[in-house]
């Protein structure tokens, strides 16, 4: 069925677009719904196979997409393993002990520390580490201090999004953009440093005010006497990995190798000491997740190739002036909030890349900061969870939404402004 002759492609375009769009919606719906608890890849991989077999995406394009996504997925796997090994080695526990020790009795002080720790962990070890590994530690720390946990837990969930704009490793969306845009690691970080600080600053000011009474309620428990035991070797390896990103980038080598090296060193040491098993290391890489990302990328590429690029292309502003950056970030935030930021960034990247690095980074600000508007990351997920009425029946959605409305527009606007300023200084 598949041919490369242009007349056939033209005849097939409408049908191919319809097929790929339906498959994309199916893949996303199954990722949100998770029928029978199956891994998302179970639907996504056959869907990707179908768009290739039916010729909705040419083999060349599918191959190009796979080659582009391959290093991204390797990078992602290395960072996921790195974060899990840091946890196994007690890094997050040490963060908790440090916070408990120096914040004793002062919830406002604890909030500052949570902001610092969550921002750094998110930036260096990715948002997954903050959501999965740090949030429980922060809750336990607040509880141990006798402080109300809500402001600190909410800070973690918000910062896992907001603070994930700094480095290519901080968020899968960044890794995808990093691979697509050809930006150097250091340039990415230099341009995103100011927006990162601006967005975190906005979050902090809003949180201090919004949760003022919870923070003023105090903390009764006696200060913890647990001495933080910093896993020095692990911290040094993580620091070396960060340095490796910069060096690799300067030498023109993919920084994924630095992440892989860091993960291998920690894994070998943990295996040698019997602290982990090969199976556990493999599990922490999240193979089904990696397959899902690859398959989703191919399906999205089919949708973009067959016509979405043309229709969305008219919506996407070109140029990297301040108004264009605002428009791009806003569009990205809206798209991320409708379904999820992962498909949003896959759709927007091919359109933003020709406009230059400023446009790509504006899209990232939108898709990374935007999801804080809805507490489940997107309206689709939120609606499904409401229908399911699982876990969340007692949740005060109004409060979640209020804090989202107070933080997201302000953080996004200031971050875009900071990006624009950075582009003027560093140069687009």
């Amino acid at each position, binding site marked *: 069925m598949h041919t490369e002759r242009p007349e056939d492609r033209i005849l097939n375009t409408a049908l191919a677009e319809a097929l790929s769009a339906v498959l994309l919606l199916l893949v996303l719906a199954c990722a949100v719904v998770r029928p029978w608890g199956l891994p998302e890849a179970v639907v996504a991989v056959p869907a990707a196979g179908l768009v290739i077999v039916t010729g909705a995406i040419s083999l060349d394009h599918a191959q190009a997409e796979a080659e582009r996504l391959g290093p991204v997925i390797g990078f992602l796997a290395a960072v996921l393993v790195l974060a899990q090994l840091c946890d196994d080695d007690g890094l997050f526990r040490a963060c908790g002990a440090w916070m408990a020790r120096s914040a004793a009795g002062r919830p406002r002080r604890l909030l500052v520390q949570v902001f610092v720790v969550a921002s750094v962990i998110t930036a260096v070890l990715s948002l997954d580490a903050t959501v999965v590994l740090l949030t429980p530690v922060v*809750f336990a720390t607040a509880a141990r201090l006798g402080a109300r946990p809500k402001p600190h837990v909410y800070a973690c969930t918000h910062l896992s999004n907001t603070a994930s704009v700094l480095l290519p490793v901080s968020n899968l969306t960044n890794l995808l953009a990093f691979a697509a845009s050809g930006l150097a690691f250091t340039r990415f970080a230099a341009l995103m440093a100011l927006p990162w600080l601006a967005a975190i600053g906005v979050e902090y000011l809003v949180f201090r005010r919004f949760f003022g009474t919870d923070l003023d*309620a105090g903390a009764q428990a006696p200060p913890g006497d647990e001495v933080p035991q910093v896993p020095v070797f692990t911290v040094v390896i993580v620091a070396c990995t960060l340095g490796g990103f910069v060096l690799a980038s300067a030498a023109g080598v993919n920084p994924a190798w630095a992440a892989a090296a860091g993960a291998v060193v920690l894994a070998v040491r943990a295996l040698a000491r019997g602290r982990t098993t090969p199976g556990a290391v493999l599990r922490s890489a999240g193979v089904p997740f990696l397959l899902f990302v690859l398959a989703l990328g191919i399906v999205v590429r089919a949708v973009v190739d067959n016509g979405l690029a043309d229709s969305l292309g008219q919506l996407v502003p070109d140029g990297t002036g301040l108004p264009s950056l605002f428009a791009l970030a806003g569009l990205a935030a809206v798209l991320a909030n409708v379904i999820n930021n992962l*498909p949003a960034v896959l759709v927007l990247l091919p359109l933003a890349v020709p406009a230059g690095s400023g446009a790509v980074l504006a899209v990232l600000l939108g898709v990374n900061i935007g999801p804080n508007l809805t507490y489940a990351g997107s309206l689709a997920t939120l609606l499904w969870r409401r229908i399911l009425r699982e876990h*969340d029946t007692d949740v005060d959605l109004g409060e979640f939404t209020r804090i989202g409305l107070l933080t997201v527009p302000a953080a996004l606007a200031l971050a875009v402004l900071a990006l624009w300023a950075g582009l003027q200084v560093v140069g687009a």
Partner: protein
Amino acid sequence: MTVIAWIAEGTWPACVDAARAHAPADADIVLLHVAGADSPAAGHGAYAGLLGRGRLDRDPGTRLEELAATSADQLLRAAEERLGLPCIRLERHGHIKHEVVAAAEGADLLVLARDGDRAHPGPKSLGPAGRFVVDHATCPVLLVWPHPVPQPGAVGIKDASK
């Protein structure tokens, strides 16, 4: 006679002291703590927002639920120790203000502490949850200041811990 003291993080010692001071000798004192559903829900929500990670065993919300149960238990034990009298520990979870109102149904006295701005005496010294409970509780309510108690007419009394 049943006296319920609402034990909340940060303000509970004042409630325990008030329950000890005001409950008749033959009263059953109940120490009530409600673990809010909001923190675990924030964990569930954040994990749901990570598309494609479908490993439910890694959902931090579940871990937060376990931690919340442990910390509620520890808080109630600390309160019991401070009370120094026989009492019943009652743990509930869900929507905090609704759970407190429901638990207080049929009680003879509910002791709660102001949960708002404690530096400025006035209506804002009651937070949203405290306001709701005072307005909706069907039993008599004893409303106390958390420690330290502001002096009459004083404004700007700050907690020393800030």
